[in-house]
């Protein structure tokens, strides 16, 4: 019983933290006055974007960091999640509630539909992750990167070809095929009920971090890491590397799918399939590389920093790719393993020295 509680209480705390954030952060015209700092709904928006970036970066870390595979298709999984969930909540709301508007409040029938759509988004995305992961059994490095890149681009091209989104009036005389492919095409998916908020985003974000951290600390997680370290030795130590590689892709895709679903329900529309193109995948890869391949805290810090930077400096966003490229080059020269390498920040020697703490054992099971 105690063990059971031990297993679940971090998740409960995650939800609690998210709930507090949801209650505290201002929406609409509300403001929090801190004297020097006026916190308005723009902060709430950025906080939400940070949460989604954390979900994406930390999950990508399982593939690119832990397992040492190179995926450039993470935004593709995000798109799958976004479209799957948008389709479910949009057409589901029309079917069950008569219109596609979001219901007020956290715990409504609409939220139940939304949560179901999050799960569905994760599962569909995980299925695609499994399929995209299969080539990783034969391909390495650049070749795998090209396959995953191709996956994202093919998906984007297909989504651009879909039919217009149907509203509650169109749907009367629409065929099943039209409903099924009514994803909005190049115009994007509009009319997604705005169910997402800081509560959902940060619940998922913190839960993602906990799950990924628990995996990394566990023997299963170390099997992922062993593949990246030395695949031949991993096999020789009895690690079924094929199984773990595909699992890495599926797990990462699951969270990316959920992240995409949250993303779609934040603005209430997917502006265009091109929003989730390879450039976005590269953004996530950069977060993982800068933070440290295999370091969860590194990914979190990089996700926060690289979300705030372009948001706070509007002019900066034009030069984003240039700055990222320079950052990457500098890092490759100065710290090729990223800020923290494979470790978490509290395990890194130079940080410990900074705080002059005596090293303590961090390896309790």
């Amino acid at each position, binding site marked *: 019983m105690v063990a059971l509680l031990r297993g679940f209480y971090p998740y409960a705390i995650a939800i609690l933290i998210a709930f507090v954030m949801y209650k505290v952060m201002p929406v609409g015209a509300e403001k929090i006055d801190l004297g020097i700092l006026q916190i308005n709904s723009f902060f709430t928006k950025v906080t939400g974007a940070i949460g989604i970036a954390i979900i994406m970066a930390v999950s990508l870390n399982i593939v690119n960091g832990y397992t040492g595979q190179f995926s450039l298709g993470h935004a593709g999984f995000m798109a799958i999640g976004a479209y799957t969930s948008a389709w479910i909540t949009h057409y589901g709301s029309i079917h069950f509630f008569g219109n596609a508007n979001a219901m007020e409040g956290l715990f409504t029938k609409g939220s139940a539909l939304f949560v179901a759509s999050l799960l569905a988004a994760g599962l569909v995305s995980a299925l695609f992750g499994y399929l995209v992961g299969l080539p990783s059994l034969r391909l390495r490095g650049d070749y795998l990167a090209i396959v995953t890149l191709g996956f994202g681009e093919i998906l984007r091209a297909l989504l651009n070809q879909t039919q217009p989104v149907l509203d509650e009036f169109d749907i009367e005389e629409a065929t099943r095929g039209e409903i099924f492919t009514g994803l909005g095409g190049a115009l994007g998916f509009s009319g997604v009920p705005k169910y997402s908020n800081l509560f959902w985003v940060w619940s998922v974000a913190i839960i993602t971090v906990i799950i990924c951290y628990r995996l990394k600390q566990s023997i299963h997680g170390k099997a992922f890491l062993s593949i990246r370290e030395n695949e031949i030795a991993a096999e020789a130590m009895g*690690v*079924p590397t094929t199984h773990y590689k595909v699992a890495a892709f599926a797990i990462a895709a699951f969270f990316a799918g959920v992240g995409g679903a949250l993303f779609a329900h934040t603005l209430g529309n997917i502006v265009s399939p091109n929003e989730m193109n390879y450039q976005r995948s590269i953004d996530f890869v950069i977060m993982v590389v800068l933070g440290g391949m295999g370091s969860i805290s590194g990914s979190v810090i990089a996700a926060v920093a690289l979300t705030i930077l372009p948001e706070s400096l509007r002019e900066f966003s034009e030069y984003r790719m240039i700055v990222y490229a320079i950052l990457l080059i500098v890092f490759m020269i100065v710290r090729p393993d990223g800020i923290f390498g494979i470790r978490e920040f509290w395990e890194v020697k130079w940080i410990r020295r900074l705080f002059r703490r005596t090293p303590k054992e961090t390896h309790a*099971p």
Partner: protein
Amino acid sequence: MSVLLDINSISLSFGGLKALSDFNLLMNKGDLQGLIGPNGAGKTTCFNVLTGVYAPQAGEMRLDGKLLNGMCCNQITRAGLARTFQNIRLFGNLTVLDNVLVASRTQIRHTMFGTVLRSMGHLREERALHAEAMTLLEVFDLAHLAHETSRNLPYGSQRRLEIARALATRPKILLLDEPAAGMNPQEKKLLAELILSVREKFHVTILLIEHDMCLVMSICERITVLDHGVTIAQGTPQEIQCDPKVIEAYLGKPMESEAI
């Protein structure tokens, strides 16, 4: 005596090069046998075939009666055959303890869902395997380095960690590929004692590749000598020592044939 490993006329060639031809080996439970031969004789290739890295072009290998042909590396390891590498292949960025834990994964039953939810199975197995890993490290005098990054270990310790890691898979047979390479005579002597004690403590059967004749002769009960992929002698250390073919392979042919 029961036969544990039965290798029956294994052959493998790389293109035109016959790396291993008609190789036979019988090992009983508890044996400590040596596999020797000059550089390029095919010793490592023999290990690679046994562990599933290469598929043999002919012949059969059985472990405890179970056919190993066609199994992939990790299946063979889980069937009970573990190895070390001549060129050390540790998980460099992982700690010493983690290196051993990866290998002990062969024992876990809980799934990744169990890990994520901290199920009872997860807690019990992780705790047991952590404790077991530490005991193993103590045997190899590595316990005080458990949280050290394995890449930063001195060479001799890395070699010992390779053996410890292989043992963590709980093998029936341990294949050691030149474990004494690069060690000084003092270290070699300690290693020889370690190998003998490992056999006692862990009840494993050991097949040892080694260059150092002294070491092999002193601890192995039977020796197989390879040259250019061909088995040129098989027998006790005494028999091997006086075998003219072995002397020839190691010291070169007598003068008259070279005069041409």
